[in-house]
């Protein structure tokens, strides 16, 4: 990762904390965690206190903790009682998290080295909208994530909304999440997946149902036409450099499926799966030196492009909104 990337990363606003829950699943886990942390702290304090008493021959209370009966009481009876209670509570929380209701939306997310392919599915399971590294969802609704892996094991995790679930080649895992309030929630691959595991993030944008509908209407359908000649030149360069072999821009000749769908790339929060914020400059930087910015990813560096061409191409990409 180059210096430029590090600088850009510095401007990243995001929330990726399990301690700032924003959905019912994350709330329930947070409560369970808080109870266990408090309980654990009390037990630790108790053990420390007992140890201090044990080490001070002067203290009278020491006599109580001298025999095997104390060992049975604290080592067997006490954990049996507390852990039974905890086990039952934990199972009740678990039941709440795995119980499924009919989802409002079904979104297939595929982990690839090192980005996220996002497909919105219709009732029959057909893809109606394809994007990458960013998921828009309406708040207050159960969303079903259908998790797959294209190459190695990845793990889908948006801490503010709930726990993680692995994406395993040959298996399909289902995760249901709900966002309670609007906001942008950052997620990151949690299972080590190779060289650039550290740079594999995604953003979940939770919108009010109305806003979500507006976003949806904006997002389906063909790509926007280039707004000016400069961008149009960029579109031609996109074709002549063979970008369409790997990328799709709906409504154009670009129908490649190896890399992310670029139909709305200009509107996405980040490029490179959380590497850089999207703008003309970063897009140009990514095209010309993706191997420098994120070594090992499958996008070659187009480092022979002339400056003006690069800018035209980046302008075109940025116009895809």
């Amino acid at each position, binding site marked *: *990762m180059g210096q430029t990337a590090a600088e850009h990363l510095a401007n990243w606003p995001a929330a990726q904390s399990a301690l700032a829950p924003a959905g019912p699943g994350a709330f329930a886990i947070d409560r369970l965690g808080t109870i266990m942390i408090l309980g654990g702290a009390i037990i630790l304090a108790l053990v420390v206190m007992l140890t201090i008493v044990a080490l001070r021959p002067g203290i009278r209370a020491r006599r109580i903790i001298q025999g095997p009966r104390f060992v049975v009481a604290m080592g067997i009876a006490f954990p049996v009682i507390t852990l039974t209670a905890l086990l039952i509570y934990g199972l009740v929380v678990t039941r709440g998290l795995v119980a499924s209701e009919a989802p409002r939306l079904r979104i297939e997310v595929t982990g690839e*080295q090192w980005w996220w392919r996002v497909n919105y599915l219709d009732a029959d399971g057909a893809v109606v909208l394809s994007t990458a590294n960013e998921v828009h969802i309406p708040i207050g609704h159960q969303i079903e994530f259908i998790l797959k892996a294209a190459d190695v094991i990845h793990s889908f995790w948006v801490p503010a909304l709930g726990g993680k679930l692995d994406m395993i080649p040959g298996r399909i895992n*289902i995760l249901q999440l709900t966002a309670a309030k609007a906001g942008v929630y950052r997620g990151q691959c949690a299972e080590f997946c190779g060289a650039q595991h550290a740079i594999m993030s995604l953003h979940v944008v939770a919108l009010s149902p109305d806003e979500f509908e507006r976003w949806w209407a904006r997002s389906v359908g063909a790509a926007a036409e280039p707004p000016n000649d400069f961008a149009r030149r960029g579109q031609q360069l996109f074709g002549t450099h063979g970008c369409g072999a790997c990328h799709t821009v709906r409504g154009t000749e670009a129908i490649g499926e190896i890399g992310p769908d670029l139909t709305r790339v200009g509107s996405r929060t980040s490029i490179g799966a959380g590497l850089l914020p999207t703008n003309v400059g970063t897009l140009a930087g990514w095209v010309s030196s993706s191997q420098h910015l994120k070594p090992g990813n499958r996008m070659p560096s187009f480092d022979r492009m002339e400056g003006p061409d690069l800018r035209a191409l980046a302008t075109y990409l940025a116009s895809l909104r």
Partner: protein
Amino acid sequence: MEAPTPAKLPNPLPRPPNELARLEEAWRLPTGLRWLTVVNNSHIGILYIGAALLFFLLAGLLAVLMRIQLAVPGNTLIGHELYNQLFTMHGTMMMFLFAVPVVEAMGILLLPNMLGARDLPFPRLSAYAFWAYFIGGLVFFTSLFAGLAPRSGWFMYPPLSSSAYSPGINADFWLLGIGFIEISAIAGAIEIIVGILKTRSPGMSLDKLPIFAWAMLIFAFMIVFAFPAVIVATLLLELERAFGWPFFIAEKGGDPLLWQHLFWFFGHPEVYIIFLPAAGMVSMIVPTMAGVPLIGYRLVVLAILGTGFLSFGLWVHHMFTTGLPSLSLGFFSAASMAVAIPSGIQVFAWIATFASGRRIQWTTPTYFVLGFLFIFTLGGLTGVMVAMMPFDWQAHDTYFVVAHLHYVLIGGMVFPLFAAFYYWAPTVSVRPLSEKLGRWCFWFLFAGVNLTFFPMHVTGLLGMPRRVYTYIPGLGWEIPNLISSLSTGLIFTGILIFLVDLCLNFRPFRENAGNVWNAGTIEWLPASTYQTRSIPIVRSREPVWDQPGLAEDVANGRYYLPGTVTGGRETLITSPVDAEPQYVLTLPGNDAKPLIAAAFTAAFFMLLTVKFYAIAVICGVIALLTVIAWMWDCDPSWDGPPAAIGGGLQVPINVGGQMGHAWWATVVLVLVTGTAFTCLLFSYLFLWLSKPGIWNASPLPELSWAFTTAVVYLAAWAALHYAGRTLARGGSAHPFLFTFAAVLVSTAAASEAYGHWQAGVRPHATAYGASVFALASFQIFLALTLTVLIVFSVARYVAGRTTESRRASFDTTALLFRATAVQGLVALALIHGFPRALPS
């Protein structure tokens, strides 16, 4: 056994004048370069610990590099390529080259004295295990400098570690590194099990066994049942990488989760494999420092047994996020609760023991034990947290887990180990370690470990995944990461102080400082190169406290076997439950063969990894020949009279059969191979469960072929049976029958594989074929091993070294033979019966 009263100790004084000189001569250490040929466990133990500490330091330095990289966000100091190698090597080395070997080494070092044995029964095996581990470990580490170190994390999940995503030999180096520790761990486990069961002092019945020995016994059995799973896993992965057998490739019917099941079936017990001996050490140290026997001995034994068993029911709690049905996960969550009880018992038994002491000795070991209590309890509590599935769904694979595992492993194992170093140093060193430096070391480590790892709980809950080489600012991770990184310096300083202490004060291999803590167990009796001058009669759990004058009487030779009967090295073999004397075992002296065999074994594996096949095979053959030469002298005959070991007791010398130590070792080996076999059966059934379609579509050989193979196995059994009878009767047909049995068992194993090949099954085509041929290959491997053993045994017979009465080579081979035949029949029933029994 009924112990004689002190007035009637087994041997009278004065002792014959040359008795001690002969004993010293038998146990004399070689000098100069020949020193490398030492084999006795108490010396190998020190080398073993030294090597493990070296790997601890190296792996620790890798961690320091990682902490420097993570000190600030967006750091460009260490790139992803190196970083991913660093954390893989750090985890692998700490677990496989430090933690397991060092506790095993502590056992090998301490057990002879603690049991009152001159040595454990297989000193050369320990020497071999040590050298294989040391040489292999060094080579494994140097792969880092060539950029060839593995980089898929210490649990090497496929498909990331498969050839498609890890081309090159980096991953193979991991499999190599693990191979060595597998060999040495299992060799050590055999030594420890047979040693604890058979070489205890008379009177040390199981209810008087020191807790450390209980812990090491269960530790060794856990290795026997856990390590085969990782052996099988690494073999399957290497078969996939080298020959394309698709065990873990989903498109061909494999399943990446098979690896996770096998790996964690080893990996979770592994944590307790490390913890149990450490807890055993604490159970020895606390009573000494409190000056009273351990409170709740029986409960602590229960806890050790409980940990040993229950820890095998936890492995899926490393797989809570893989999407298995929540009920299946629930079973493991519940079992994870259950394993908390044994830990609780031990913690409160130690507290109760401290509470019972009239005067606590405030020594460096005491400090480390108290530090351990705090850190381990905290780690145990976060362990209960991650055992709750919903919480784990957040915490899994984050820095919270990194914090938890370091608390458990450093608290549960490193602190007890340092306590043990300071505590037992006087038994092997002329001077104890410095109390003053020890205190400094403790406080630096205690502060450093807490300040480094406690903030990681927070970093994890703030969303930081583990194994990232860099991170972005603005997520709240900067401050905790910086604290963690800076505090690493405290740990580093603490370790440095310990090393200085070692340099200044640790002087092993000569006399020792003696019972400086006034401890009660017999490893504190006077000892020299021959360990104990005479083998004591043990009448309580703390004989040194309860049997006045014991040290003096033992040192003067008033107890059993005060000299050498045969003129060479010997120890006393006792019965496993009651420790009644059974026979005197002669032990081998210094020998270069274990070192040579280990070096060539290491060369064999390393050259295979770098694909120099021809030289590799040559090295392998040399290693094998060396082992054969070493085995040639085993099972020696003794024509003299039984040994008078004192007290009017006449015991035989070198007994074979079911009382013999070789037979016991083979029983343990059969458990190892049986567990490996079971793991292969599991793999077959698991892959069926995962991808049943392939099972229905795959061809099966005719049933008659399976029956024929079964008949050949039975015929092999019969041939073996008659070979045994002819041996007992001195009949000349023995070599022919025995050889014939080898031919038959090899034929049976080969015919199973051939049948499937004829039917059109191919190992590289589907996971079904791969799992069928994996089972068949394992049987072929065992049959080949048996053939080598049988040729060896027959050669001994021809040379007059195997006779009616000296038949250990036959008996042990026969045991493995029968186990192989049973496995062959079970595999036939499963592979030919199961698909036919399935509803189509």
